[in-house]
C-alpha cells in the first residue's frame, strides 16, 4: 500500500468549494501582490479526506499497536482527554481576551499547577514550556539567572552524564553554557569519583534523569546532590522518566532545584506523530523568582495571569502566549481521572511490566545491559553478541518486530550501550501483549540463527520496505517539484 502525493491529484480549477468564501476583489497595490499562486493542491473535499485517511492507515500508533519505545512512555491516551479539551468553549478562547472571559480555563490551569507541585515536591510551577527540551531550556536559563543574580556569572558549566538524552547537552549550549560530560559506572550509576573531579567554581549545575535513560534508578542521588550543591551548583531533573517514580519518590525530596515534566509522557497527552508536547517546569525555593511567564495566579476568587510585574526576575517568555494550552487541558483531565491513588499505580504497574519483560527476555537468552539491576519503567537489551555472532543488528531486530505487529523499542540510545534496545512497555499494556512481544523477540532470535538474511531484509509487511537513509541525505529531496512528474 502506497499513496500518491496529494499534489498528483491536483487539477487546475478544482476546489473544495464549501470551505472558503469566493474570492472578492481587494484593494492591494500591485507591488505587494503575489504573482504565481502557491503550490497548494487543487483537490476536492473527498479527495482530501480519502488521501489523509489512507495516509493515517500507514502509521503504527498506540491505538493500533503495542509501542514499547523506550524513554517515550507510549501509554494509552484516553479519548476523553481529547474530546473534552476540544469543547467549543475551550477552542474559541482567544489567548489575549479579557480574563473575565477565561475563568473556566484559568481555574483549570491553576489547579494543574497545584497538582504538579504536589507530584514533584516543588514550590512553584510554570506551565509555559512547550516540550521537554523547552522545559530544559527554562530550567538551565533559571539556573544561569540565579547565578547571575548572585554575581556568579562565571558559573557556566553544566555537568551532563554520558547517558543523558541529546536535548540535555544541546540545551546547555542554547543557554550559553559549556557541557562537561560525566561517565557512568558499570552498574549504570553516575561515576562519583569523576563527578567530584568535574565540579568546581565554574559549575552551574548538573542535569540528571532519574531513573536514567539506562533504565535504572540513580542509587547515589543523595551523594550526587551533596557533591553538586557543595560545589555551589544546582540540580536539574529531566522529568522524562517521571512515569517510573510517580507517587514513590519526588524530585523535590531528592533535592533537585528544578525539574521539567514531559506531560506528553507521564500524563499521557498524545504524541501526535511528533508533538505537541508540554514541558512544564517546577522549581524549588531558590528559583521561584526566575520562573518563565506567564503563570496563573489567583486573587480571591478570580484567576489572572502573572507576568513581568509579578515576577520581575523572570527569564521571560518562551512563546507568544502561554505555551500549549490545549495539551495542558488534556494533562489536567488525565490527572483528575487518575487521582491520587491512580498516580502511584502508574509507576507501580509500569515498573512491574518492565521488570516482567526484562526477566522473560533474560530467561530467553537475551543480554541485559545491567543484569544485576532492577528495571525502572524501562530497561536495555544489548544485541552486541548477536550482532557479532549472527551479523544481525539491533536495527534488524527493530525492523523485524514491525512484521510481528509491534512497534520497535528505541534503538541505539543511550549511545553508550552497543546495539541496544531500550524497552518501555508502560503500565497500560496487558500481560498477554507483553508475552506476545517476548515471543516475537524469541522468534526473531531463532530466525536470526536460521536465516539471518531474512531478518536483515525486514520489514516485509509494511507499506514500504527498508528505506535508504543514505540516499535521502545525499540526494536531498525535501519538497515536491511538479515539473519532476511531467518529465
Amino acid at each position, binding site marked *: 500500500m502506497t499513496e500518491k502525493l496529494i499534489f498528483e491529484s491536483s487539477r487546475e480549477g478544482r*476546489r473544495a468549494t464549501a*470551505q472558503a*468564501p469566493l*474570492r*472578492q476583489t*481587494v484593494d492591494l497595490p500591485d507591488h505587494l501582490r*503575489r504573482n504565481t499562486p*502557491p*503550490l497548494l493542491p*487543487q483537490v476536492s473535499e473527498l479527495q*482530501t479526506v480519502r488521501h*489523509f485517511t489512507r495516509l*493515517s492507515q*500507514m502509521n503504527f*500508533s498506540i491505538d493500533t499497536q503495542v509501542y514499547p519505545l523506550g524513554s517515550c512512555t507510549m*501509554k494509552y491516551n484516553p479519548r476523553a482527554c481529547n474530546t473534552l479539551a*476540544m469543547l*467549543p*468553549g*475551550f*477552542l*474559541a478562547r*482567544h*489567548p489575549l481576551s479579557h480574563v473575565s*472571559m*477565561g475563568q473556566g480555563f484559568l481555574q483549570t490551569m491553576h489547579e494543574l499547577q497545584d*497538582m504538579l507541585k*504536589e507530584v514533584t515536591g516543588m514550590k512553584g510551577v510554570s506551565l509555559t514550556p512547550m516540550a*521537554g527540551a523547552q522545559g530544559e531550556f527554562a530550567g538551565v536559563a533559571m539556573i*544561569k539567572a540565579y547565578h547571575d543574580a548572585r554575581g556568579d556569572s562565571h558559573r557556566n558549566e553544566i555537568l551532563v552524564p554520558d547517558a543523558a*538524552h541529546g536535548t540535555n*547537552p*544541546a540545551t546547555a*549550549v542554547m543557554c550559553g553554557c559549556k557541557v562537561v560530560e560525566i561517565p557512568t559506572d558499570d552498574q549504570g550509576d553516575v561515576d562519583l569519583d569523576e563527578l567530584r573531579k568535574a565540579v568546581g567554581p565554574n559549575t552551574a549545575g548538573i542535569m540528571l534523569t532519574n531513573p536514567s535513560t539506562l533504565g535504572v*534508578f540513580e542509587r547515589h542521588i543523595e551523594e550526587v546532590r551533596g557533591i553538586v550543591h557543595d560545589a555551589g551548583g544546582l540540580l536539574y531533573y529531566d522529568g522524562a522518566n517521571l512515569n517510573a517514580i510517580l507517587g*514513590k519518590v519526588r524530585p523535590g525530596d531528592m533535592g533537585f532545584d528544578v525539574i521539567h515534566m514531559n506531560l506528553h509522557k507521564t500524563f499521557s497527552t498524545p504524541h501526535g*506523530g*511528533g*508533538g*505537541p508536547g508540554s514541558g512544564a517546569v517546577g522549581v524549588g525555593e531558590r528559583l521561584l523568582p526566575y520562573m518563565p511567564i506567564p503563570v496563573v495566579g489567583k486573587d480571591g476568587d478570580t484567576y489572572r495571569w502573572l507576568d513581568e510585574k509579578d515576577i520581575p526576575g523572570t527569564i521571560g*517568555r518562551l512563546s*507568544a*502566549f502561554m505555551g500549549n494550552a490545549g495539551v495542558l487541558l488534556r494533562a489536567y483531565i488525565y490527572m483528575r481521572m487518575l*487521582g*491520587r*491513588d491512580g498516580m502511584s*499505580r502508574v509507576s507501580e504497574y509500569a515498573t*512491574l511490566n518492565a*521488570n*516482567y519483560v526484562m526477566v522473560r527476555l533474560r530467561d530467553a537468552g537475551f543480554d541485559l545491559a545491567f543484569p544485576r*539491576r532492577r528495571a525502572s519503567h524501562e530497561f536495555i537489551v544489548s544485541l552486541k553478541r548477536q550482532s557479532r555472532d549472527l551479523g544481525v543488528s539491533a536495527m534488524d531486530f*527493530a525492523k523485524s518486530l514491525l512484521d510481528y505487529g509491534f512497534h520497535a523499542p528505541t534503538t541505539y540510545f543511550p549511545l553508550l550501550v552497543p546495539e541496544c534496545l531500550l524497552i518501555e512497555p508502560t503500565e497500560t499494556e*496487558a500481560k498477554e501483549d507483553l508475552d506476545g512481544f517476548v515471543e516475537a523477540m524469541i522468534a526473531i532470535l531463532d530466525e536470526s540463527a536460521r536465516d539471518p538474511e531474512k531478518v536483515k531484509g525486514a*520489514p516485509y509487511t509494511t507499506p514500504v*520496505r527498508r*528505506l535508504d537513509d543514505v540516499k535521502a*541525505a545525499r540526494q*536531498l529531496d*525535501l*519538497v515536491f517539484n511538479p515539473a519532476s512528474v511531467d518529465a
Partner: protein
Amino acid sequence: MAFIPHTDADVRDMLQAIGVDSIDQLFDEIPQALRVDGLKGVPEAVGEMEITRIMHKRAARDGEPLTFIGAGAYEHHIPAAVWEIATRGEFYSAYTPYQAEASQGTLQLIYEFQTMMASLTGLDVSNASMYDGASALGEAALMAVRANRKSRSGKILMPRTLHPLYRKVAKAVAGNQGLEFIEVDYDHANGTLDLKALEAYADEDLTALVIPQPNFLGRFEDVDALTDWAHARDAQVIAVVNPTSLALIKPPGEWGEKGADIACGEGQPLGVPMSSGGPFFGFMTCRQSWVRQMPGRIVGRTTDLDGRTGYTLTLQAREQHIRRSKATSNICTNQGLMVTGATIYMSLLGAEGLAGVATACMNNTARVVEVMSSVDGVEVAFAGGQFHEAVLKLDCPVAPVLERLAAEDIAGGLDLSAEYPELGNALLVCATETKSEDDIVRFGKAMADAVAAVAGEKR
C-alpha cells in the same frame, strides 16, 4: 484501576516470574528515606462521567464570544474534516516517525507540508515545525548567526512594528548565546518601518534584519526596499509572515532583488483553533544553501529496498539526538499534530480558497475601520491599507472599554497603550472572514456605547 489492565492473576504470575513478593519490592533500589507514601495533595480520582461534567461546565462558562482580537492568534473557519482526520488514532497517538517504515503516513504528510510551506513562502526548503511563531523567530535568529559567515556581531535589527511578544520571546530564547537584538523605531504617522531609521545602523556589522509582513499594526512594510537594504550590508533577512496573507501578497522569497533568506511565523491561522494560545506551530523555511543550519526535523523522499518511493527523517546530523551539544537546536518534540491539521487545511482550501479567506479578512477589517471611523470618540490611527488588523485611537482609556465589551461577550481587541504609548489610547482590532456584516455592526454599536460610557465616567 483506571487505564491499567492487570488482573490479580496477572500480577501474581508476573511477580512470580520476576521472583519478588510484591510490586513494592521492585522499588527497593530507591533510598528508603526518600520514599513518599502517595500524593495526598492530589484529589481523589473522578470517573470520565464526572470529569466530563466538570469540563463541560468550565467550557460553557468561557463560552464562544464574538472575537475581534488578532495579534498573533486568529479566528478562522476550520473545516470539520481537519480535526476529524488529524485526531484519528493513527496520527494522534503515534510518536515522532523514527521507524520510517511504520510511519509513512506521518512522513509523507510532512513532506507534503514542507512542499506547501516552501511554496507559500517562496523559499526552497521547510522544516517540519517549531514550537510557535515567536520561538521560531528566536531559532531563526540563531540560524542566521550560523548561516551568515560574513558577520561576527550577532546583531539583529528588530523593528518595533514586530509583535512585542515576539520580540520578548526572541530575546528569551536566543539572548543567552550572545546575540544582540536591537529595536528600531517606526514612523509613528503611518505605522511602518522607516528606512531612514535604519540608516543609523548602516555602517555596523549586522547579522540580520527582521521584517514583519504584514506588521503587528496590520500595515504593509516596504519589503523590497528593506530586503535590498539589508542585503547590501551583508545582513540576512528574516521574514516574519502571516501564512494566510501569503495567498495574496508577495512571498518572502521574492522580496527585493534576492529574496529573504529565512521565513518564519505562526502557523496557527492554517486550521488550528485559537485554544487559549496553543498548541500552535511555528514554521520555518529557507534557501536551499542553508538547509544544514536549520533547526528541527526535516523529511526527505527516498527509495526502499525494492525501489519504491518512501519518506524518512533526514539530515539528522543537525539534531540533538545525534549531534548533542553541537546540534542546531535542542528541539526534539515539535508540534507534529498541528502540522497534520494544517496540511489538511491547506489541501482543503487550496491556493484559491486561501486567497478567498485572505481577501475576506482584508475586506472585513476595512469594514470595521469604516464603521469605527463614524463612532464618536474613535479615530483610525493610520490612513491607507492594512491586512486584517487595524489600530484605533480612542479618546478614553482602553482597558475599561474592553471590560465593558467583555460584559457584552465581545472580545474587542488588544490594548496597545503600554507597548505603544506614543499612539495614545490605542486599540488593535482584527476581523477575519468569520465576521458577518451583522457582527461588525454589533461591534460598532457596542464600541460606541462603551466609549461613551467610559468617556462619560471620566468627565
